[in-house]
């Protein structure tokens, strides 16, 4: 079984938000909503500054609180560890939204909860998620952690990285290369 994950190179990322638009057009995300977004975090004070630019989305956690709190089983872990929402089973109760430490979910205007799917429809065809495939600076890597030769496995072996809010204990699968 593969274990899909994403790594985002904060050195390469310029925060252009192409990943956001590509997700919207690929997945017909309605205008006004997004499944991924850009965060710019500045630390230090003038002139000793550090800026980290991140493309963020659902972390497809190993121990996903959204899946645990979902009363209907609509939120579930699918093939490759991808966390998905089965729209037809979703009652829009928002328990998952409350429980997600990453604020990665929203209520779709059609009433169900929506979020990043790692573009599973593309992954099944052997393609990268839309965000990864368009990134002009090649700042995003998608792949299988179970395959030691995958680009993502190699990147995580050779580069320093972090995950977001590790203290939430959810074992996220979106990594940030530093």
């Amino acid at each position, binding site marked *: 079984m593969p274990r899909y994950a994403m790594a985002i*190179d904060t*050195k*390469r990322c*310029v*925060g*252009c*938000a*192409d990943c*956001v*638009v*590509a997700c*919207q*057009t*690929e997945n017909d995300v309605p*205008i*006004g909503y*997004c499944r991924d977004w850009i965060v710019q975090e*500045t630390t*230090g*004070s*003038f*002139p000793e*500054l*550090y*800026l980290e*630019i991140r493309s963020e989305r659902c972390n497809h956690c190993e121990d996903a609180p959204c899946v645990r709190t979902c009363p209907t089983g609509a939120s579930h872990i699918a093939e490759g560890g991808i966390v998905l929402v089965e729209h037809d089973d979703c009652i829009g109760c928002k328990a998952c939204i409350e429980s997600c430490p990453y604020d990665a979910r929203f209520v779709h205007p059609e009433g169900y909860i929506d979020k990043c799917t790692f573009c599973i429809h593309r992954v099944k*065809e*052997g*393609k990268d998620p*839309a965000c990864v*495939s*368009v*990134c*002009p*600076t*090649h*700042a995003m890597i998608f792949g299988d952690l179970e395959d030691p030769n995958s680009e993502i496995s190699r990147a995580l072996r050779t580069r320093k990285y972090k995950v977001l809010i590790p203290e939430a204990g959810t074992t996220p699968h979106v990594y940030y290369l530093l």
Partner: protein
Amino acid sequence: SKDEQNLLADGKIERTPTYCEMCFWKCAGWVYKKDGKPWKIIGNPDDPNSRGRFCPRGTGGIGAYTDPDRLKKPLLRVEKNGKQVFKEVSWDEALDFIAGRMKDIAQKHGPECIALFSHGSGGSYFKTLLHAFGSNNVAAPSYAQCRGPREEAYMLTFGEAVGSPERTDIINAKCLVLLGSHIGENMHNGQVQEFSEAVAHGATVITVDPRFSTAASKSKYWLPIKPGTDLALLLAWIHVIIYEELYDKEYVKKYTFGFEQLKEALKDKTPEWAYPITTIKPHVIRQTAREMAKNAPATIVHPGRHVTWYGDDTQRVRAGAILNALLGSWGRRGGFYFPSKAHLPKMPIPKFPNVKRDWRKAFPNKYPVAHLALSSGICDATIPSPERECSFKGWIVYGTNLPMTLPQPEKTLEAIQHLELLVAIDILPAEITGWADVVLPECTYLERYDNLRLSPGRVPSIALRAPAFEPKYESKPAYWMARELAKRLGLEDYFPAKTIEEYLDYQLKAIGSSLEEMKKIGVKLLPEEAQKLYLEDGEDFEFPTPTGKIELYSTILDEYGFDPIPQYTAHEEPPEGYYRLLYGRAPMHTFGRTTNNPNLHDLMEENTVWINSKVAKQWGIKNGEYITLENQDGVRSTPVKAKVTERIRHDAVFMVHGFGHSDKRLRRAYGKGADDQRLITRVKIDPLMGGTGMRVNFVTFRKEEA
């Protein structure tokens, strides 16, 4: 992929080649439809400009097509009950009106009293029309309001302009020096891709900017220079390179002219001299100069792009060009390559008539180095003055929103009052269309053919733009409009192809391709036209300058009585309580032309004004609070959100350009953020080429009344 091929084969998915018009980098890509509906736009992997990857604007191009606020029908200004209103008219009525007024102006004042302002692909057809009509007054704000000083500075020094896409070999650079260049915020795609690649490979980036820009955040050295003093830093760098003997001696000896004069002229321009001017410490100036030399010739002192800052811009950019020459980076790997040019045959047309007067006549003995017409100059010369025998009477404005593009918007509006004809051709309503006599709705780039994109570069390429969708509403492509006008003016012979398809096919067949083939592949490389990118070691080379050498000492400037070697002059500083207004770009927008795009508006719906944290504290301004800005002439901005940040110096503020639309017909963008151009009531004109230095305005803060 296989599935995609299958879906394409069953017609569930269709794709059409295009090159993007969301900015002017012209990346080639594919427009996809799913079940007959617009779906997405993806880069074409065969394209050297995009390498298969678009920027957010290109990806969001679908929004340009779907925007419900688009211009829908031709509009004619009419009087109704004493008020001026727009009336929807037929294409025939609109075109007849324009042709009639053009003939009147030609008869009364001469055809050269009509000028064209143009930015974008379709402008070329109106250019042909105007030349055929007898005027060569064709201007683009991209010259005197943007990169003109850069092109002239490089022409003076190396005999060749930098051009677009830039000939910078960033991907192979080991050291990249950026002065106020917003790579990463300015998403010129190929360049940003190379920049990121260079950063990932550990190139040393040196960024000089009063603001901790995206590029600064990726740099080994950030030099937060005092705004307006970059030329002093450049001269000090040149001083270090010369006096520490760090320059490329063989290259300088073989290829340059005027080294001894340069050395003599800059003998006092030490880092210690530059320190109090720039606030950059002498050891940092020395250290960064040594970094440049250590990596030379794979060092690029980037020429910048928008360089109309302080009115001495050609000289400042020339100082950077001189630095590149000393480092031996022109014509070297990791420096500047020699781009290959591509050629396409043109259908034969009659010779254009000779013109009696051109825009230069409006400015006797001024701006001798300018190679292109000045938008600001044409605007000035529309206001009647005793120094001119004739002023402009007609403007055709293609895709440029002049009130938000030219500085001193009050002057633009005054000029408009003197016109007998103002035609605006655009996709969306904008401030300029509100002032027009006739508005012609153009269809978007996704609904039309245009000229083949002919890109120079490492390998020259052509790309096809074909219509993915039928034009919405009653919008029409520029080719059709220009040809229809030509017919009415008796100039049809200048548009020999009845349709643009016929023209494209003629050109493509001449190079062994066809329209049919290009529809399938979108992009074609022309490797047979590629030339070598770099100089060979010790190669004899004649540069296209008067001396045949790289002119450290400019013989042309000497002849015109300007400083042959750049000299530093101090610029006015902000008065107490005022801050220098800086402006720039955001990656998801191209000026004001994308702020109403449904997809892109969502990513950034308003701009903010960046204010240093300590300054904000003094003024009691909180992050996220709406304030207004007031400039030195008492002109106020619309309300704009304060971004209180450590990322900018205490003596400047920064805004992204293109916001604060005042046209209510732009329903999404209307009233969001503030327009920097409104605050640019003062300019410093570059005496060499007429560029309008725009970073010479100062603003103070006014709290919004609740």
